[in-house]
């Protein structure tokens, strides 16, 4: 299969179960909502070392937020309910409550709940106030700037992590340009994030290592500098590879994001091939076949 003259490898991306929360951060203006969102989703590229994977999902217009102020939706993904709950507490407490003028709302229907405002309220040292609005409970925590409003409970639900595709091209310039276009296109898809810096990964990994103490190591098959030394998957004429990793709340969102991302990447001159990272079907239960995803629209 080819898209815009770019070869699409007949392979699949392998994704796995995660658990996710969706937070809506509002503030006096978009700038401060984004400050909080960027901080709360910082150092959250991979669960391997960050505890969670997180990113900004979308900007929200004031007329669509509960308090009528500009908002930012963020998605946070963890491997377990406990792990995600712990990280939510830390990130809401340290990154959102600390940020001037912000408020934090749950923005997800999910089967699991975690108390966030219900615990953070103790920061109010007894002066916190509880309010119920439309059946939802909020806490007003007095802070030096004024008051931090946070919802009592946040919802969590099953989600998917590890949707991905690889962009293989002539050089780093065109591959990076293609990756940027892909990420830009994926921003238009609801309920997904690309958790890596700028949405792009340069250091894709494989499971295991020659070193016993490492559970993951560089993806040698796709490292251009190692072509003559290892079994390679890089075709002739390709000198750089970048990966886009996508986490989403459901299969359709991940699939849609992969499709628009691949299509955008294929519009850049110099791109030779699109592939995907998988572990032979042994790691995750979700297999996103590239041909099937791209064929859905054709």
């Amino acid at each position, binding site marked *: 299969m080819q898209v815009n003259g770019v070869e699409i490898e007949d392979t699949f991306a392998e994704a796995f179960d995660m658990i996710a929360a969706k937070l809506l951060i509002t503030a006096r203006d978009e700038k401060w909502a984004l400050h909080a969102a960027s901080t709360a989703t910082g150092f959250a590229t991979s669960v391997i070392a960050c505890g969670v994977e997180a990113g900004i999902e979308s900007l929200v217009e004031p007329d669509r937020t*509960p*308090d*009528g102020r500009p908002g930012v939706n963020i998605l946070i993904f963890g491997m377990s309910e406990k792990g995600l709950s712990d990280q939510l507490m830390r990130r809401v407490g340290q990154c959102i409550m600390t940020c001037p003028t912000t*408020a934090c709302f749950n923005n997800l229907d999910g089967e699991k709940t975690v108390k966030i405002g219900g615990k953070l309220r103790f920061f109010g040292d007894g002066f916190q106030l*509880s309010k*119920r609005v439309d059946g939802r409970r909020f806490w*007003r925590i007095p802070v030096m700037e*004024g*008051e931090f409003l946070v919802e009592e409970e946040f919802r969590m639900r099953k989600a998917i992590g590890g949707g991905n595709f690889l962009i293989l091209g002539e050089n780093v310039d065109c591959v990076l340009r293609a990756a940027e276009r892909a990420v830009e296109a994926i921003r238009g898809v609801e309920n997904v994030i690309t958790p890596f810096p700028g949405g792009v990964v340069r250091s894709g990994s494989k499971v295991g290592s020659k070193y016993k103490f490492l559970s993951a190591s560089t993806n040698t098959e796709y490292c251009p500098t190692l072509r003559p030394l290892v079994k390679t998957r890089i075709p002739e004429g390709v000198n750089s590879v970048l990966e886009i990793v996508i986490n989403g709340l459901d299969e359709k969102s991940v699939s849609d994001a992969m499709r628009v991302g691949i299509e955008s990447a294929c519009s850049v001159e110099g791109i030779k091939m699109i592939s995907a990272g998988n572990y032979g079907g042994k790691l995750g239960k979700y297999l996103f076949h590239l041909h099937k995803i791209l064929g859905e629209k054709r």
Partner: protein
Amino acid sequence: MIILRPKVRFKVPIEAECISPDVFSDKSMDEIRKLEILYGNKRKPLGELFEIEEGQGDGETIKMEGDMSRVKHVGAQMSKGRIEIEGDIGMHLGREMSGGEILVRGNAGDWLGAEMKGGLITVHGRVGNLAGAGYRGSKVGMKGGTIIVNGDAGREVGELMRRGVIAVTGSLGEFTGALMTGGTIVCFGKLGGRAGAGMERGTILSFDRPSFLPTFKRSCVYRPTFVPLLLNSLRKYGLPIKREYLEGSYERYDGDIASLGRGEILVWVGS
């Protein structure tokens, strides 16, 4: 839908707790006509005092038409369904209700929604004293739900209130929110004197500057995010919420410091 109309002009108070969707829902028309009410000190069947007919519409809706200003306790303890009242209605409407909806196009008497736990009461008219309050001897008044008054309300509205929202587009009488331990009262008109007397917790939100008890202390002018959140949630009731209220600043008074002092009166001071 069941429609009730008074057969005569009532001269004595009527206690009609049975007029409730919970009571009507599993009964035939004959059984409804035989339900007992107190007419003064006499027990009478409902059908003797009201014309009762079946209309089109939802089976859990009761419609009342006419002057029922002496009919008390309608919708008491109701948990579901809807009561529509075209005309004035007497005291204790929707007392202790836990769900459902009551709509009044007319005036309502004292103790509207007293000690209610949930549901919605909307009155397009004047409301008497002690709406959402706790009965004498009770420690707690309204514990949940919403009361919307498109008109004025009397004294001691929200007395002993713990949770829920009371929003009044007109003026409120004296002692609004007295002895409150939680919940929110929103006054779009003039807030009467001695508001929040003895309140421990809770919020009184006013868009007109009231007179304060000396036991309320000014803390600051700020923009509590909770206010636009609340006002946005109240928009669906057609209240006169101006853009300036959502974006404006509020002067906060903490009190009543003669009591616990964790309550607040928030006064809008403009954009």
